[in-house]
C-alpha cells in the first residue's frame, strides 16, 4: 500500500493525529467483513461522531483502534491505522498497552465494564496514573482528586474513597471520564457514553466533555446512535451502515445537505419536536445479517431507489462538495431520480 493514495488521510500537509485507512474486521469464518473498509482521519482538538444503528460495527471499530478487539474470534482483515505517525496495527502488544490509557483512552457505554466494583474510585484513578507515570502514591492520589474536581463531582475529597456502587449512573460516567483523562491523552474514544443516562444527566455529561475538550485539546471520537447528540457535539460526522461508512463530512453538511438514502431515511424516521407530522417516513425492512450481506450496495435491500447497478456493484465514497462524501451510485438524488409515479 503506497503512501498518499488516499487524499482524505491527508499525507501531504499536517498529518492527522489518527488516520484510519480501509480498516476491515471479520469474525471467524463469516462470509463477509463485519467492518468493511472504513477510512477517516481525526485531528487534534476535533470531534468526530460515528453514528449508526445497533450492530453496524461502531463498537468493534473502536475496540480495533484501541487494540482491544477479541482476536480470535475477530481478525483484522485489512487496512492501516496510524496514530501520531505510528503504525498501530503492526505495533507489538507491549507498546500498544503502553499507549492505552496514556496517549489514547476509551470510555464505554456501561461504566461498570471498566470500573472494578471491589476498589475505591480514587485508587482506581490513581492506579491508572501510576501505570504510566513515575510519580509517588501521594501525587497520584492528588491527581485523582484533581480529576474528580474537574469532572465536577461534588465534595470530591469525600468521594475519593467511595466504591462504584455508591455512585449514581451519571456520577460513574464522570468517574470514567476522570479516569480516561487523567493522563491527558491525545485521543479519547467514547462509545455511547450517555446512552444509558437520562436526558438531563446526558446534557450535563455532554457539556462536561465539550468543556474538557476545549481545555485539553484532546481529539474525540464519539460513537452514538443519536442524531441529536451528533448535532450537538460533532465537527465531523461519519454515518455507518452495515459495516461501511455511507456518508461523511462536516456536521453542517450532513444535517443541511444529506446525500445518502440511508442518512435521509434515518432523518425521516425521527419524530420532530416541531409541528406534528401525520405519519413518519420509515426505512422498510431491517439490517442484513452477516450471512445475508449483499455483495453490492449493502443498503440495496432497503433502499427505495435501488436499481440493477446497486446490486452488482458497491458504490465508492465520492465527493459531493469539499470534504463531504457519499457512497451512492445515484447521489445527488435530485439529478438522477425523477418523481415517482
Amino acid at each position, binding site marked *: 500500500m503506497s503512501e498518499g493514495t488516499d487524499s482524505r488521510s491527508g499525507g501531504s500537509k499536517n498529518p492527522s493525529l489518527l488516520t484510519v485507512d480501509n480498516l476491515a474486521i471479520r469474525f471467524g469464518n463469516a462470509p463477509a467483513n463485519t467492518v468493511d473498509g472504513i477510512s477517516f482521519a481525526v485531528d487534534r482538538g476535533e470531534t468526530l461522531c460515528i453514528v449508526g*444503528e445497533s450492530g453496524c460495527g461502531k463498537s468493534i471499530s473502536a475496540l480495533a483502534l484501541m487494540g482491544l478487539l477479541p482476536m480470535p474470534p475477530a481478525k483484522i482483515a485489512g487496512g492501516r491505522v496510524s496514530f501520531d505517525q505510528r503504525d498501530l496495527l503492526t505495533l507489538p502488544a507491549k507498546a500498544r498497552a503502553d499507549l492505552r490509557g496514556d496517549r489514547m483512552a476509551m470510555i464505554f457505554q456501561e461504566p461498570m465494564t471498566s470500573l472494578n466494583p471491589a476498589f475505591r474510585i480514587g485508587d482506581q484513578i490513581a492506579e491508572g496514573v501510576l501505570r504510566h507515570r513515575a510519580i509517588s502514591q501521594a501525587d497520584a492520589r492528588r491527581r485523582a482528586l484533581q480529576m474528580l474536581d474537574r469532572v465536577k463531582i461534588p465534595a470530591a475529597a469525600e468521594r475519593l474513597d467511595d466504591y462504584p456502587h455508591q455512585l449514581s449512573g451519571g456520577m460513574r460516567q464522570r468517574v470514567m471520564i476522570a479516569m480516561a483523562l487523567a493522563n491527558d491523552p491525545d485521543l479519547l474514544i467514547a462509545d455511547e457514553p450517555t446512552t444509558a443516562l437520562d436526558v*438531563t444527566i446526558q*446534557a450535563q455529561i455532554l457539556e462536561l466533555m465539550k468543556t474538557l475538550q476545549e481545555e485539553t485539546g484532546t481529539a474525540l471520537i464519539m460513537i452514538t446512535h443519536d442524531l441529536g447528540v451528533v448535532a450537538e457535539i460533532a465537527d465531523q460526522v461519519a454515518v455507518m451502515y452495515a459495516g461501511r461508512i455511507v456518508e461523511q463530512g462536516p456536521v453542517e453538511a450532513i444535517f443541511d445537505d*444529506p446525500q445518502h438514502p440511508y442518512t435521509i431515511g434515518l432523518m425521516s424516521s425521527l419524530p420532530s419536536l*416541531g409541528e406534528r407530522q401525520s405519519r413518519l417516513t420509515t426505512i422498510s425492512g431491517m439490517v442484513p445479517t452477516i450471512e445475508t450481506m449483499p455483495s453490492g450496495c449493502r443498503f440495496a435491500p432497503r433502499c427505495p431507489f435501488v436499481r440493477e447497478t446497486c446490486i452488482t456493484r458497491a458504490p465508492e465514497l465520492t465527493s459531493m462538495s469539499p470534504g463531504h462524501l457519499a457512497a451512492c451510485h445515484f447521489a*445527488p438524488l435530485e439529478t438522477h431520480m425523477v418523481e415517482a409515479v
Partner: protein
Amino acid sequence: MKHFAQDTILETRSLGRNFTRGGGLFQQRTVVRAVDGVDLTVRRGETLAIVGESGCGKSTLARTLVRLLEPTSGQVLYEGSDIAHLAARSMRKLRKDLQFVFQDPFSSLNPRMTVGAIVEEPLTIHTRDGKPARQQKVAGLLQRVGLRPSMADRYPHEFSGGQRQRIGIARALASEPKVIVADEPVSALDVSVQAQVINLLEDLKTEFSLTLVLIAHDLAVIRHMSDRVAVMYLGEIVEIGDTETVYGAPRHPYTQALMRAIPVPAPGLRSMQADLPGDIPSPLNPPSGCRFHTRCRHADANCGTKRPALEPTEGLREVACHHWQKIAASLSPQKQEPPRSAAAAKRFSLYREWSRKNKSKGPSSAPGVTTTQRKDNNA
C-alpha cells in the same frame, strides 16, 4: 382531534404504591414511595403520555393502572368501578379490556412458546372460539402487525427486536381490548424500526378505536404520538395538559429543564443546556416540600417545606409549582428544527415518494416481513 367531548375511561384517585426494601437482620427497613398521590384521568379514545426520568415511577403507575400491581393507597377506576374490588366476572372483563405492552421485547415473551401460541393464549382465555377459529385469528393478527402468518411456529429468539415488539402488540390486540397501556414500547428499538412500530401503533389505535396510555422518555416520540402528556418527577405528577400546550409553553420548571435538555438534530441550534444541576434525588429519601426544590433555580424557602398541589392554570393544564405564574415570564421559546435547504427538501420528498411507490408494488418490501435469523426462500 383535540377538545372533542370525551368521557373518562380510566381514572386514578390519590393513587399510591410503595415498595419496602431491606428489613432483614442488619438492614434498616426503607419505604420507596414509587407513586405518591396521583390523580389522573384517561379519556376515551385519547393517547395520554407519561414522561419522566428513570425511577420516577412511570412503570409502577402503568402497572397499577392495569392491576399488574396492587395500589398501596387510593383507587383505580375503570369505567367508574374500583378495580380492586371487582367480582370474578368483572375481573375477567377487565383483563380482556386492559392490555399491557412491555418495554423489553427481549424478555417479555415466553421463550419456550411459539409465536402462534403466544398470540393465541389470550384468545383461549377470553373467547369461546374453537382451535380453527383461533388459528385463523392468530394469522390475521400476525399479518396485521406486519409479520408473515407462516412465522407462527417459530420461537421469539428467532426474531429481531422490532419483530418481537410486533408480536407483543399482536398478543395485546388479541383480546380486542379497549385500552392499551404501553410501557416504553419503542425505547429499545433503533430509530428506523422505532418509526415502523410508531406508525403501526397509530394505525391500530384508529382502526380498533383504542385508548392508549403511553409511557416514554423520548420527548419527540411523545410529541408525535400523544394528545395529552403528564410529566412525573419522583412519584408525583408535576404538570399535565394538552401536548401542544405543554410543549409550546411548559410551565413547571422541571418540564422546562427537560425540554431544554433534549439535543435537537440541527447543528445550527446547538442549544442544549445543562441547567439542571445535580442528580435525581433518591426516591428512598425524597426532598421535603416540593420534591424538585433541590434542583430548581426558582426555589425559595417556602418550596422546601410546603408541598405544591396540582392546580389548574390556563387552558386545561395543571401545574404543581408555587411560583408558576412568576416563572412563566422567564420562558425560553420552544426548540424546533429549522427548515431544510431546497435541495435537501427535494431529496426528502423523493425518498418519501419512492418509498410509497415501492410499498404499493408488493408485499416483499413491506416492513418487517423479511427474517434475519433463518434463510427462508421457500416458506
